[in-house]
């Protein structure tokens, strides 16, 4: 189906998202921070990027800006993983070029529903 790049510094989140997406038949690339994700993205294309906002080395906001500067990711849907408490961060993500967001906590069903919505 689709190739999805998942970026989160939390191993449990990463595993959960990766597992869920793989179960649904997607190809998944994972990265533990923005820098790693950017390096991956430069070498391969993805149909969707799901990224956490707060991460060491390179945060999600910087990652989105960097990705949008790459021709291959100009129109790629990018979703941020965000918590309700950070309404500003939601908007910051949009400002940097994010397509939308997935609000934490989420369960696998919600994740897949959102992903399917974007992938069409």
């Amino acid at each position, binding site marked *: 189906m689709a190739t999805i790049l998942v970026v989160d510094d939390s191993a449990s989140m990463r595993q959960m998202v990766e597992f869920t997406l793989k179960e649904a038949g997607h190809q998944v690339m994972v990265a533990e921070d923005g820098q790693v994700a950017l390096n991956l993205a430069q070498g391969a294309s993805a149909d969707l990027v799901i990224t956490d906002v707060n991460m060491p080395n390179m945060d999600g906001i910087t990652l989105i800006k960097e990705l949008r500067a790459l021709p291959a990711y100009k129109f790629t849907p990018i979703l941020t993983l965000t918590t309700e408490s950070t309404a500003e961060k939601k908007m910051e993500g949009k400002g940097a070029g994010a397509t939308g967001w997935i609000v934490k906590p989420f369960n*696998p069903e919600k994740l897949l529903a959102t992903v399917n919505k974007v992938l069409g």
Partner: protein
Amino acid sequence: MAIDIGQFVQTFFEESLEGLDVMEAGLLALQPGAADLEQINTIFRAAHSIKGGSGTFGFQAVTGFTHVMETLLDQMRNGRLEVSGKAVNTLLESVDCLREMLVSLRGNAGIDEERVGELRVQLEQLLEQNQPAVGKAAPGVSPPQQSAASQPAPPALGWRIAFRPHPDLMHRGNDPVRIFRELSALGELTATPDYRQLPPLAALKPEDCYLSWELVLHGEASAEDVTEVFAWVEDECDLQIEPLTAAFAAAPPDLLEPSTAPADAPKAKASAEEGQQGELVLERRNSGERRQVERRTPLAAADSSIRVSIDKVDAVINLVGELITTQSMLSALGADFEMSRLDKLHEALDQLDRNTRDLQEHVMRIRMLPVSSVFNRFPRIVHDVSGKLGKQVELAISGEQTEIDKTVIEKIGDPLVHLVRNSLDHGLEPPDERLRQGKPETGNIMLNAYHKSGSIFIEVSDDGRGLNREALLRKGLESGLLKPGEEYSDEQIHDLIFYPGLSTAKQISDVSGRGVGMDVVRRNIQDVGGNIQVASQAGAGTKITICLPLTLAILDGQLVTIGQDCYIIPLLSIIESVQARPEMINRVAGRNEVLRFRGQHLPILRLYELFGAKGAVTDLQKGLLVVVEADGRQVGLFVDDLLGQQQVSIKSLEKNFRRVAGVAGATILGDGRVGLILDISGLVRINNAVS
């Protein structure tokens, strides 16, 4: 739940506990008043991850509690809240509390609601004090949603939506077609495009969106459902959502014929996919349930795991590769062996020996963890305890990358805490006393770890007042451990601190001296096959050195024979082996034999008597005496003969048979026989009991 996320819960616990360590270290490093922003950010991120994970895995209590911590940290990092000593301490306590919550949850135990509640109130108070400056600026709900949500209950007719995307809508990966597809899942959708904003072809930017749409959605969708569809683009378009009036709704959809096609086509596609999706979900649910059942038992037992760097695993795989090469070499040799190729066989066997040893070493390394996992808790302990005692203390840690077997690490944590607390409480003087002694006000505690000749050494040292020789001597005499009139070396007297009931602390404080003494520390260290020594100089400080084996699974042993059997003496405890001459043997009180050895008289333990071995050498001059040391005492063990030295793997006798006094374990020897491994400190105790 279609997908079982229980399998990731262990990971969540592990990373959260690690995150708490990060938070703790970060908080300890924070200088109140002059906080490093990146430092706060790191702490914040850790809290944020724990909060996100706990919500996902259904630990609401953790989410709620972490949320307050996170809010506090967020205000600190934005400079809206002062980084005060009080706030840092409250956060440190919260870290402790959170750690307890996680550990309880992992063990399926209840959490201490009262403590959580109390701390939460304290955290909220810190936030409230700050409230006027912050103001309640939480816009949260977006304007269009408000306007739509304030409409009366959803009319059954549907919605009319004016959707005018900004030209850059697609630059963020959004797509009007996706929005239409979602809307058509809510009801019957008709879309009328408006081309009026389309520029002349020369001015048209192919990446921009110039179209807008008039959408009509028939059906019972609620206002929330409709606004939700536009949530991601509400700032990238002009949007009006109105309930359908009866007049408009009555208009037959086919009046808008030309535009229905693009909207309907995706709808069909979407619903076809929905069908597939449904099946998929069903399948997953079944397999998910199975997994859940399988996982339940191990989860409840809170299985422990270690993180191993990939380098270590790769090294093992490499060695297995070499082993396979050697094995194929040997089988080739064995297929048509002739004596002329004996050299080759020896060569291959040497190689096998090398491979096995390397493999053993590298497999052991998998179990090794850096001692930093224990050392890391000390900055916090020193911070807390020195504050309580009113002492100024600087902690220096070195060698924290030294690796030790995981089991050993788990066992030395508590003894080390005890030693450090002792140094803080009894070793280091209060600032005024230090000044009087001509020392700097701030006392020093050093933790050091290093490798030396196959063992790990851990040192805990301080520059405090040192051990009180006179007090120890007095106590030793009172308790009868020392005999009046004899001369004792400093080492012998300092060693008394390891005997039960010999605490010289004048008063029992909150910090240490509560009966669990140095004897327990020594026993714990001995339990993992190590030993502990103290060196002290009055007025200059005390240094305690712990020597630990690299691993608990393998031991360097000296093989000895007693009668028909083979026994193993741990090489580390052997001082020397001697053949006794008649003049070296004395009898004390007509019964106890002693060996005169380097100016000392050592008790002799005839092992064949102890173990009831038949056919053993009984004449002291015909056998050998192995002088061993444990707990600072030496004894001569009488054996028939010495065989070779070799590494033996330790098997538990208790697990396979039962506990035997004087025996630490067993091993399988090269010829398949069982060899018993002697427990030297056990034997020394037996000897004491006999005499």
